[in-house]
Structure formats: C-alpha cells, structure tokens
C-alpha cells in the first residue's frame, strides 16, 4: 500500500509536467486548429536557454522568468514568420511546416548546445517529506506546485478575461471575429506565444501528446486530467508490470494514445464535432 501510494504521488508529479505541455498543445490547437509538432522541440530549446543562463551563474529565479519571456517572444515570432504565410493553406501543409520546424529547432539546438542530453538542475531540494505515509521530494512538490499555478493562470486568462475571450473567438471564427473588431492575426500570434511559454515550463513531448489526446484535443480541462492520468498510469505500469520497467514507459504512453483514438476518438472531455448544415 505504502509503495502504491508512493507511485501515485510520483505519477502526479510527472503528470503535472505532461499536463502543462498538453495544455500548451491544446492552446495552440484552439488558437488555430493545429497540433504543433514542434512544441516539444521549442520547449527543449527554451530549457537549454534556461540551462545556459543557470550555467553562467544566473540565479534560477531570474533565469526562469527570463526564459518564459524569451519563449513567449519566440512563439510570437515563429507564428508571424513561419506560420502566418501558410495560415490559409490546407491542414496537411501546416502539419508539414510544424514538422519541419521541429527538425529545424532540433538542428539549431544541437548546433549550439550539442547533442548530449543534460539534466536540468532543479531549484528544489531532493530531500523528502512524509506526506500521508508516502515519501515525497520537495522537487516533486515544486513541480506539482508550479504546474498548478501555471495551469490556473492560463485557465483564468482564457476563461475570465476579455483578451482570453477574443483569443478563443479568433481561433474558432476568424471571419466573424473580425467583424466584431477582433485583431485576429495578433490574437493567433498571442496564442503561439502563450503556448510556447507554457511549453517552456515543462519537457517531454510524446507524453504530453498522449495527455492531450486522452483529454480531448480541444479541452483545457481534459489536458490537465489527461496529463495526470498518463503520468500516474505510466508510473504505475513501470512499477508493477514487470516487463515494462523503466524502458517501456514510453510504449505505455503510446498505447494510451492508440486506445483512446480507437475507443473514444474525441477524448474524455472532447465533444464530437457535429456541424449543422
């Protein structure tokens, strides 16, 4: 039981990371009906920027917001320069463009920072505390805390503010929104900036995609719940299914994607896309 609880808590911690990346994907999807395949690469690049800053003696608490700002600006730039020219192109073109972007960002990051994986120093200590009988590290608590705050802020921005409302409007009905005075093109760019910043908060692409699909690719709440489910499931599978171990956890995430796409294609929280004609 103790062990089980332990795995659940660690699962929630990694789930928090998946949830924020998944949320970034959902934001982009809602901002232009597009899955950004470069999301993970952009997050990786942002992490490298933070890494370099910290490496040069910059305090973590300065490097973190600086990286967020850089990622936000980068997201806007990418939308203005790379995506905007093909905005009206068929969806397949957009998919290829973001795939190309992923390769490009990967190459640039490799060129500058090298291809050796590095682990990012955590600002939180690895010491553990006893929480309801499970041992939780401050690191995990920190991850859960930061993810929760980011998710909450994004939710409030999108659902409770006028600018969030215009962003959602611009994404779903660009023509009608223009007639209401919404600066559609800038709202889309803002969506990219936000998603890029949220993506910078976390790290691993495939898991996040699994989370976004699980929750329904249009649902912010789904992204969060999906992220947590994937985190916990992958962790539990790693601990209790002997042949999964640490190596096949990725496969479990992929299996979740496939299962969801087969059984409930619109996700747990997605609405079937029905249109009145």
């Amino acid at each position, binding site marked *: 039981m103790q062990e089980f609880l332990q795995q659940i808590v660690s699962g929630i911690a990694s789930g928090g990371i998946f949830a924020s990346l998944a949320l970034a994907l959902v934001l982009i999807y809602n901002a232009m009906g597009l899955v950004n395949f470069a999301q993970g690469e952009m997050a990786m690049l942002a992490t490298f920027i933070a890494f370099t800053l910290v490496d040069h003696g910059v305090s973590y608490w300065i490097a973190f917001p600086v990286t967020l700002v850089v990622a936000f600006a980068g997201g806007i730039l990418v939308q203005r320069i790379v995506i905007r020219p093909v905005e009206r192109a068929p969806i397949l073109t957009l998919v290829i463009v973001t795939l190309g972007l992923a390769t490009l960002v990967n190459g640039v990051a490799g060129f500058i920072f090298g291809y050796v994986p590095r682990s990012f120093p955590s600002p939180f200590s690895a010491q553990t505390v006893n929480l309801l009988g499970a041992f939780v590290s401050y690191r995990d608590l920190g991850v859960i805390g930061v993810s929760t705050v980011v998710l909450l802020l994004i939710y409030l921005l999108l659902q409770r503010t006028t600018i969030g*409302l215009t962003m959602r409007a611009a994404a779903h009905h660009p023509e009608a929104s223009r*007639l209401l005075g919404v600066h559609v093109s800038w709202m889309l760019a803002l969506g990219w900036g936000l998603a890029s910043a949220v993506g910078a908060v976390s790290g691993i692409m495939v898991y996040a995609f699994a989370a976004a699909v699980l929750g329904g690719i249009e649902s912010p709440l789904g992204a969060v719940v999906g992220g947590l489910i994937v985190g916990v499931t992958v962790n539990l599978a790693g601990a209790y299914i002997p042949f999964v171990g640490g190596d096949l956890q990725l496969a479990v995430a992929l299996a979740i994607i496939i299962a969801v796409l087969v059984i409930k294609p619109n996700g747990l929280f997605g609405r079937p896309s029905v249109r*009145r004609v």
Partner: protein
Amino acid sequence: MSALLELEDVRCGYGPTSVLHGVSLAVPEGGIVSLLGANGAGKTTTLRAITGGLRWLGEIRFAGRSLRRMHTEDIVGVGIAHVPEGRGILTELTVDENLKLGAHRRKDGATAVRKDYDRVFEYFPVLRERRNLSASTLSGGEQQMLAIARAMLMQPRLMLLDEPSLGLAPLVVRSIFEIIRTFNQADHVAVLLVEQNARLALEMSTDAYVLEVGRVAVKGASAELKGNESVRRSYLGY
C-alpha cells in the same frame, strides 16, 4: 447634407470573377436604406466590400472618410456593425460571451455598457433567459436576435444587415423588423438592409436600391418603388 455612407462606382469581385460593375449608393445619417435584387445580384458582396472583406476599386466613404485599404477590424472600430450572411454567431461560445464580444471595443465605460445590455434584453427577453447557454443551442430566430443584439452593443452609427429574415417564421421576422425600426429611431443609427423579402424591406426603409447583375438598376424612395407596378413586377417579383 452629405451622406453617412457613400459608395461611388465600386467595382470588385472574387479572383478573376467580377461581381460588382460600378455600384453607387448613399445611406443618410439615421436613415434606413434597402438593397434589393435577385440572388447573385451582388447584395452580399456590396456589404462585404464596405467592411473590407474584399478589395475594391472606386470609392467608399464613411462619415466623410475613405475606407480604402482599411482592415475589417478597424472599419468596425469607426462605427459600422455588420451582421453577415449566416449571422456570424460564435457557436463555441455562450450567448453572453457573444454579446461581450460585441461590446469589447467600447471605451465609454462599464456603466454605459450595462445600460445597453439591459436595453438589449428588453428588446430580446429570450436572450436574457439563455444568457449562459451555448449559442449553438439557439434556434435560427434566436440566433438572428443574438446577432442583432450583439451589433447593437457595438454602439454603431451604421448597421449592415444581410438578410435578417432568411429562414425565419413570418411572425419572428415581423418582430425583429419592429425592433430594428425602434432601435433606428431611438438611437438614430442608420441601417443598410439587404433583403430578399422586398415587400417587407420597402415598408421599413425610406430609400431603396435594386441591384441587377452588379449594377444599380433602379433607385428611389421606397414608397415610390412600392407603388410602381412595373418596377415591382420586373425587379421585385411580387
């Protein structure tokens, strides 16, 4: 007195297909003008040209200022509310969020906006009841009401209405037209009304233009056109 909206020899089209071959018309401050004509005559295209939905040649002036090369969102900002063909309802959002979008560019303060909300809900009580529901759950008539209410909240000087009667029951159409007339008189907002239902439009407007394949075929006072047997027969089909 110069008109609020003036079109002078406006030509435009979609790609190589030209739709308007030189349309001139004027909407006076606070007036109601009908734009009539058969399907494909260029009525919707005329409205789209006014709010910058496509490029045009000639001249379009609003309150004395040329709208050339202005973006749609900025044209809307100077006081033209366009209720487009198909109503332009944002079905992913709630009724209230749709209304909020109508008022989101206003700078005259929350109190004034709230007052207008109350007034709009008086015109369309059903929207108050459905405030928190998704706009996709509204019936066709209710969606038309929402679109017009939203346009009212934009506090425009000119409203462009593209076939508000389309697909609605005659009784609903009557009441919507009544409300538009009330609003026009109370707020001195000019209306350019595109309609298939010529009889109704002529009853409501002071002046009318009849388009035929991208040109103004007939223009005049609505009462005159209504009384003119041959115009009615050959252009208005009733």
